[in-house]
């Protein structure tokens, strides 16, 4: 669908338990570190809002949040 709002996501390293749900759902956006087992955002962290919502919903540590809306894409 065109015009889907893009949002930026972030990981709260304190709360992250390395559960890997984010990496499973959006491997282009999240990567869990091998040693520390903490997820971080790779690249711009931009996702269409519905997909970002799913990651927020599924994160077992409630560590993923939507930080700011980005300008609407085509």
């Amino acid at each position: 669908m065109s015009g889907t709002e893009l949002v930026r996501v972030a990981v709260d390293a304190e709360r992250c338990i390395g559960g890997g749900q984010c990496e499973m759902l959006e491997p282009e956006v999240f990567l869990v570190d091998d040693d520390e087992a903490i997820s971080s955002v790779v690249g711009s962290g931009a996702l269409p809002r519905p997909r970002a919502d799913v990651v927020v919903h599924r994160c077992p540590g409630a560590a993923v949040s939507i930080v700011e809306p980005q300008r609407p894409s085509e």
Partner: protein
Amino acid sequence: MSPSAASTPTLAPEIADPRLYLDGIPHERFAEIRAMPGLAWHPYGDNGFWAVTRHADVRAVSRNPKVFSSAIGHTNLWDLEADALEARRSLIDTDAPDHTRLRRMVAGAFTPKNIRRWEDAVREITVELLDEFLAEGGGDWVEMVAAPLPIRVILSMLGVPVADGGYLVELSNYLVEGTSDTQSLPPDAFGNTTELRLLPFNSPASHALFEYGDEMRSKRRAEPCDDLVTHLVKAEAEGGRISRHEYRHLFHLLVFAGNETTRTAISHGAMALAAHPDQWQRVVDDPDLVEPATEEIIRWATPVLHMRRTAAADCELAGTPIAAGDKVVMWYASANRDEAAYTDPFRFDVGRGDNEHFAFGGGGPHLCLGAFLARLEVSVLLQEMAARRMLLEQRGEPVRVASNFVHGVLSVDMAPGWGP
């Protein structure tokens, strides 16, 4: 009993009697509880528990660990004396920040990316077991395929030498016994001198497993390898982030947790495929269905029927007041058949779309560590069965475990056939 308030709570029908489960999950009773207003109270021993049965309510409990604690009480239905609770505490019975610290010690090895590295090893074991099953013309699916697959995989991840595999499988089978009421070992088996009530599953096999874990730790300290035990030993060396108690219990949990559970998923999975040949044909015809079929098998099986939390403070759930100290039990077996969360929950559908099942937990921080590994094992098995155009035909009823905690199958006779 707890519900102190003036209001008398609705009473749940009996769902804790282990004997009920000899005929399978009492789904009609769970449906009855789901339809009751608020939460139903279930008497148990000299106390009781709140039966949380709806999908949305299970999620609410699982994701609020500050209020619904894993550390205060036991995570099983029955209570433990304070010293036993301490002595038996593992990752699964901790809250943050201990939970976060311990979980991160091992979480890195279980991410989707790192689990994918085990795909070839899982396939090799799977092929060997399937080919043997076929060569024998079938037999007990649990003994021949469902049980050996997960244990062999986790042992190779831990770095247990192949020669010791048999011994650890034996220990692990004794622990499985400990989840039901049968216990065939004498208290002093394996040189155990610890009081059984202080050991996980009250089993002397736990003592043997601790000893084995200690031995491996010494070996990996002397000579590091590329395995999970080495990883834990390193973490320990780099600042003592893990105590001896924590290490032993983590080793124990890693050997055990994925064992009976994945075995159960694979057993019920085979039974479901045998009972729904049309669904299996869809998977054979379309490899893209392996992934949703894996989720559906795990939902269908729900190997862990419930987990318990204990209220850390007075609170409210589904409009029902809960008092600090109350037991709150999340029935995954019920949430996974909740008509409010699934269209046609009692239909086995390998193409089911949005399948947010709670077989790995209700979405909170204790979410199964081995979820991606279990998924890999089930999907590789489906792929290899499909590649052989294998069909399964169930011969007779399965022998089930009398347990309200695990949805275990002791044996089920399967005959192989071949599809078109």
